[in-house]
């Protein structure tokens, strides 16, 4: 197992190097002059000269890459041209939003998707099965941004003045703020620096839980429901389909037939004998979807007015904020690679046959 992990880690090294190169190249390839786009069209030559000097933009490209590599390895992702703040600071602010969104989306997907698949497989070829699979098929075919808009219309407008009303945008209602847990606990933490407490405090629901602000928690959760549903629908459908097909395959295996022949109740056959083994491909799919959720996050965050990673990436790419583009694509790609690694390792752990290859 350790050998497998080590091999996977070594394989990740050239990929990570490639990612560093691509993020760097991507940022340099963005058309337009970063100085003019940051300081306005009327910035003078001298001002731009000083600007380029400050951000190291008048070095040669290989030199820039060298400096970039050195800085990244020492944990310095540079300073945002537009915000004038270190990229790491922005990450403390933005990353938690996306992490929270992704978590709840995944939670939604798993909590709905797996039971859907189970029911579908249990009532194989019945109308329930057909209906569930139609739902799942529609679920994977929906544009995320459209679903988000429709949900915010449905719950924000059509259900206005009913108990079903949900806030269609933002993270917290106006007038509600949750005290950072480190302040409540009397810890001294620099809220701007890239620290774990700062990161956790920006995950509203978790922070509210830590300081036991039930009112704040409720509000934060209510704001999470629609974005999580919008983002979670595609993985939900994929998980439902995967659970169903993998369960059906396992149900056809001899050991399950043996269990049935022994007179084990069908519910027990499905839940106890088959389900655990059927879960293996589902775990992989969950991992793979987790990565692709980041794509959907850009759209979901745009629709629901959440300032997360996706949103800042889109803004900085279109606004030519080099350092932010570099920093955030890098962190996303690294997270992506890391998730894949975890999934593969988990899979290898669950299925010893994989390790032999």
């Amino acid at each position: 197992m350790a050998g497998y992990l080590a091999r996977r880690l070594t394989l990740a090294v050239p990929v990570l190097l490639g990612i560093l190169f691509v993020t760097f190249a991507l940022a340099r390839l963005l058309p337009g002059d970063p100085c003019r786009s940051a300081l306005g069209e009327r910035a003078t030559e001298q001002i731009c000269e000083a600007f380029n000097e400050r951000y190291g933009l008048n070095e040669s490209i290989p030199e820039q890459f060298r400096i970039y590599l050195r800085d990244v390895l020492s944990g310095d992702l540079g300073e945002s041209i537009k915000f004038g703040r270190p990229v790491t600071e922005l990450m403390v602010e933005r990353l938690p939003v996306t992490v929270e969104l992704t978590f709840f989306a995944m939670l939604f997907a798993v909590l709905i998707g797996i039971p859907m698949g189970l029911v579908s497989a249990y009532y194989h070829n019945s109308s329930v099965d057909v209906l569930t699979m139609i739902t799942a098929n529609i679920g994977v075919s929906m544009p995320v941004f459209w679903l988000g808009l429709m949900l915010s219309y449905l719950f924000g407008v059509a259900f206005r003045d009913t108990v079903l009303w949900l806030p269609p945008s933002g993270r917290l209602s106006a007038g509600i703020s949750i005290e950072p847990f480190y302040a409540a606990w009397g810890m001294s933490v620099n809220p701007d620096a890239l620290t774990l407490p700062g990161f956790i405090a920006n995950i509203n629901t978790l922070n509210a839980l830590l300081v036991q602000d039930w009112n704040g928690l409720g509000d934060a959760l209510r704001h999470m429901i629609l974005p999580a549903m919008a983002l979670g629908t595609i993985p939900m459908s994929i998980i439902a389909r995967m659970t169903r097909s993998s369960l059906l395959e396992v149900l056809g295996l001899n050991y399950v037939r043996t269990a049935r022949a022994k007179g084990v109740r069908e519910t027990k056959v499905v839940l106890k004998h088959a389900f655990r083994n059927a879960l293996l491909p589902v775990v992989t799919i969950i991992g793979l979807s987790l990565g692709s959720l980041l794509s959907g996050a850009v759209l979901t965050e745009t629709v629901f007015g959440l300032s997360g990673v996706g949103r800042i990436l889109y803004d900085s790419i279109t606004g030519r904020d080099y350092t932010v583009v570099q920093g955030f694509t890098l962190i996303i790609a690294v997270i992506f690679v890391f998730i894949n690694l975890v999934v593969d390792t988990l899979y290898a752990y669950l299925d010893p046959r994989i390790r032999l290859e």
Partner: protein
Amino acid sequence: MQRADSLPPEPKLTTADAAVISRPPKSLWRETLERLIRKPSAILGLVILSTLVLIAIFAPLIATHDPLAVLLDVPEEGVEKRMSPCIHLFGCPEAGDTVTNIDVGGPITASAVNVSSSLMLSATGSNVTIWDTENARRVMEMDHEAPVQAAAWSPNSQKVLTASGAELYVWDVNTRQLNRTLEHPGGADLVMWNADGTRFLSADQETVMIWDTLSWNAVGTIELDGARIAAAWNANGTLVMTASGSQVQLWNAFSGTLINTLDHDAPLTSASFNPASTRILTTSGSSLYIWNASSYQQELAAEYSGPLDHGAWLENLSRGVRKVLATSGSTAVVWNAVNGDLLLELDHGAPVERVSGSPLGTRILTHGEHVVRVWNATNGGEVMAVELEDPISNTAWESSGGAVLVASGDTLRVIKTSDYEYIMGVDGNVRDQFSRVIYGTRLSLLVGITTVSFAVVFGVISGAVAGFLGGWVDNIIMRIMDVMLAFPPLILAIAVVTVLGPGLVNALLAISIVFIPAYARVARSGVLAVKEEDFVTADRALGVSSVRILFRRILPNAMAPLIVQATLGIGTAILDAAALSFLGLGAQPPTPEWGAMLGAERNQIFTAPHLVFYPGIAIMITVLAFNLLGDGLRDALDPRLDR
């Protein structure tokens, strides 16, 4: 050949072999297709897909409008909302449902609707009130000293002209003030603006006065020989037409001098211009005539079995509709305006007081004393019938043709019809949403297929070469693919589009590039699997070249998973292209692309959800079709997965 005879008897074909031979030769593709069409979901996918292809091909015929044309010159407040057919999920009014019901508070003596149908006015006794059609709210009150006989909207809806006693009142709708009063001796019972609102006419039974709105003077007065039957402006305001006795007369609108007289054998019952004012329709006795309005020649004459009371045009030249209507007792008659053929006879069941054609020329409205009916102008079918207790005083088409406005007794009503105009409403730029959605099909199918083809070609070449050659080539190619796969696809696509610059073509390129690794991986694993098959070794033993082995032998056999992946990939490509367009990086306005349409109207989600709803549904259906087909193909190509 003697060979077979010298062989031992065993190699002779058995009966089972003979049975095999009697079947026609069948390729694997054909078998796959046969398996495919046994799957209901795949059939559904194929059906949807072929429908979409047909829609894409015949988009110009299906679309009711030009997808890029702005429908009205001035987009008015709330116009898109009113024209929306609403989302059926939340309960939509159907044909015959009253969507607005205004109790005026007294018997309506006159009523009128403005050009965009956003405002209605009603006259009750000496009071005239302007109502908001949408929410039945009172917009403006206009009090007069004497009972009001007539009222009219100026073409830009800024002014209202009323006739009360011997006075004409000009009201300013913006300031809600009386602008001025003018005098029409004898008291007008008809007031009418010309097309640009620079002039208007007022008429009593025997006199027609022409007014100018710059000087507010009467520029001409027309004295008729007999009782007035009709009076009207032509479209550009140069002519005034009047009808009295058995004569239609045309007058110069600037000088008030007679230009021409069109004589009829019998007394006239009606006379009217067509919408473009190129022709005049008259009814007289049991005959119907069409005159050319510039040469004053009679172009057409038609006879009917009964006397004709009221004529009207049913014309929409842009859609090729050229018909005329007339009423005879309780029947409405439809003729072809070009050759005079009698097309339809619609039985209203009671004497028809008025007949009118919808703005698009697709529906006919008739009303008697108590019943309003709407008919299909093509096949004569009845679309709706509404019976009202109070006598009907006036009916008019709503400007979109999606509703009729009915005044009866004390009440003004807006009654929904199901005219298929603006099936999906109009967007923020007042373009027909339905036509745009229809044209969007072309783009989406094109986007899906081109991006995936591009990605498949490059992915398959790189993946196949990597798998076939192996070694360091394989290593380098697949490491590059790994790096590309390390980025979330949409973010990579956004970055690529930003580098290339926004636009549909660049968005397609970006999506293709992002898709390449997926196909490369599938192609590579397919090639690796097939490479070791004996039939490939057999080719090598024969001395077949590597290139030929790869492209003629290995790739066709590694194709099945690629086809599945590509079909499913088309759906994803359409979604991603829509997402890029939604973010403003793909198709640029005014291109009718679904994602771009959604993006442009996303701020209207709370006021006009249908503008977001329909393009999204269209995307979903298209993607669903490809997904169903892809799933079906996967099962058909690999029967082991059939479950």
